[in-house]
């Protein structure tokens, strides 16, 4: 009966007047205000403007540059009928899944896991080499990758040393080169996160599993990974969003070519908006990218919630 007595006596907050509630909300929410305003001005408003712009026929030059007209969903109709768009969408999926979800994520975890078992000095050296790619500015990393894969590049010189004939990799396998470059560049990020997370896995859990007779594979699959579920979801979300918007790396290495064999959505949008001057059409592509990113984020957030709830 303790519960009913508690309910019977009204909680003190109910007696508060309206003005104190407002004051309290202000005190609590006040510090968030500058951040909220900045986000609204520099993120939400441009996104809304871009969204509105994608329903016009705005161009870079010509009559419609300064007086664009409302064309409704014409840009989206053109987009979904455009074979270049479906190709670009497919390339984006391939690029994201191969380089982020599989490449950076799995490799990052494997390296982090190996480092927990490696000699400390080895781990430090290995970690340093991997982080190097992450520290490089994107444009520098892109040039390095270009210099590695190009016709007279490092890779072909190395192949020459062992007597193999190289090829122009950027031309014959553009997707493979940009995927490898992005794996190289981004693996450090997930590795760092997984390293920190692995250090947080309670050793007694592992020991308990070991006493119960679980082998190393079972301990990894049944204990470590489930404990890290939240971290995995967060990492996946971050690297997926990052990879969806990779532009510099691809533009420097292949510029979306040859033809449009490696033109992912960001490159496609850039070309339409700035090379061909169809700003509104490019904006429509950008809007679709935004929606794809949002869908991915929602999925990961749902996984994250469940992981938190299980704790």
């Amino acid at each position, binding site marked *: 009966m303790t519960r009913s007595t508690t309910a019977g006596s009204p909680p003190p907050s109910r007696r508060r007047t309206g003005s104190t509630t407002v004051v309290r909300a202000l005190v609590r929410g006040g510090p968030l205000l500058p951040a909220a305003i900045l986000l609204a001005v520099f993120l939400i408003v441009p996104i809304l*403007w871009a969204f509105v712009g*994608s329903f016009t026929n705005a161009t870079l030059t*010509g009559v419609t540059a300064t007086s664009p007209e409302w064309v409704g969903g014409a840009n989206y109709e053109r987009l979904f009928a455009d074979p270049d768009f479906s190709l670009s969408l497919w390339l984006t999926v391939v690029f994201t899944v191969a380089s982020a979800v599989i490449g950076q994520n799995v490799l990052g975890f494997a390296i982090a896991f190996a480092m927990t078992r490696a000699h400390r000095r080895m781990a430090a050296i290995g970690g340093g080499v991997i982080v190097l790619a992450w520290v490089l500015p994107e444009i520098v990393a892109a040039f390095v990758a270009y210099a590695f894969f190009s016709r007279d590049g490092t890779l072909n010189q190395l192949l020459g040393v062992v007597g193999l004939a190289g090829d122009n990799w950027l031309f014959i396998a553009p997707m493979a080169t940009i995927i490898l470059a992005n794996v190289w560049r981004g693996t450090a990020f997930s590795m760092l996160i997984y390293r920190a997370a692995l250090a947080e896995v309670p050793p007694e859990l592992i020991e308990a599993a070991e006493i119960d007779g679980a082998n190393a594979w079972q301990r990894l699959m049944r204990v470590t990974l489930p404990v890290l579920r939240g971290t995995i979801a967060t990492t996946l979300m971050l690297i997926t969003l990052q990879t969806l918007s990779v532009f510099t790396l691809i533009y420097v290495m292949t510029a979306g070519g*040859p033809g449009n064999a490696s033109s992912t959505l960001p490159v496609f949008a850039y070309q339409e908006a700035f090379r061909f001057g169809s700003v509104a059409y490019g904006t429509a592509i950008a809007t679709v*990218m935004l929606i794809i990113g949002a869908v991915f984020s929602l999925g990961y957030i749902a996984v994250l919630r469940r992981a938190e709830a299980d704790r």
Partner: protein
Amino acid sequence: MRARRSAIALSAIAAGSLIGIVGCSPASGGGSGDEQTLTVSYIRTDAFTALDTLMQTTKEQFEADNDGVTVELQPASANDEDYKTRLALSHRSADTAPDIFYQDTTTVRADAEAGYLLALDDYLAEWEDWDQFSDAAKQAGVGNDGQTYAVSLGTDTRGLWYSIPVLEAAGIETPWQPETWDDVLAMAEAVQSSDPDAVPFMLYAGTGTGEGSNMQGFYQLLYGTELGGDALYDSESGKWVVGSQGFIDSLEFVQTVYDEGYALPVDRALDPNVWQSVFGELFPGDALGATIEGSYTPSFWVPGGSFEWDSYADNMGVAAFPTQNGDGPGVSMSGGWTLAVGAQTDAPDLAFEFLTMALSFDNSLSYVNENSQIAVRADVAADPSYTEANPFVGAVTEFVEFTYFRPATSDYNQISAAVQRATEAVITGQASPAEAAAEYDREVESIVGADQVIAP
């Protein structure tokens, strides 16, 4: 209106940032208070410094003549396409729009329609030097409404540049002047059998070399087919030509050149910097028979050029590129750049004065000579220092008689890209000439609309 304009500008910026590009920081526009500032926007790269020299000189002269006026030069280190994009974006706000700028003739019409350019008719009427400009040069600056928006800095023509030692080693007499496309192929075959390591005939194609693929490649072929000057765009009806046999024939020629191994391998041909190999390695190394290039070609080899080559005058020859079946004297394409004044300038009088100073006789002459341009001013063209600047000036200037200009409509950039894709599909073997031509027709129709195309 103003709010809407900035809304669109912002949406462009938002689109840019969404796809991960960091925008260039806007430079300050016109001055305020007593001090007047004129901003000048143009291209300066390692390989192209002539315009920078011209602007520096003009700035000095102009500031000496006009007390209290500062000229702020804003050179962009960019290729033509990126520069044009950046210029168009800068016109979206009066704060970033330059007062005077380097303007491509192909975008004059579209930019004038967009309201970026100031109409110059009233100013030109009072400028005594205006009569010196050739009619073709004057025409290059005219907008769709018939007003003049830009003044030509110089023009160029294109021809067939060939290596005398390579051709003579293959038993071809020089000076060489092919009469038909078959003559060109016969030369390539002869060079191939005499020196299997040499590149017999480089023909630019595909999207890698961008507009150069068309100007120094496909258009040279297309404009020499049955429809001639109306092969791409029918000037009478103002419509784009689809389904022409000339288009397929031109693609077949491109296919032959690549399939027979006359040109560089496809992957090298698609490298945007392939022209540097042509000028810097292949011709000086006697490893290339011939290619189609611009009248500016000697500027790379003269002392101070990007690829200095002492004996170019003795080793190189230039011929008019022939038409398909030998009708007419030949084919040449012309482009060229102009100077224009921004519509949003605070000081149109000063800006026009700067423009006339930059295009004066002395300044034009040194610019045209340094940049190996074809003079558009009659007094410059008659000057001995121009006619004797290099041994090829006379020959390439004669190409003006049969040269063509591109249709400078606002859709042109997209059409040009469609042409590049067609040639790329053919050289990579993705499509046969007929298939690539059909795909081009489809693309053109979707770009300009079914009522804007015409079949011969």
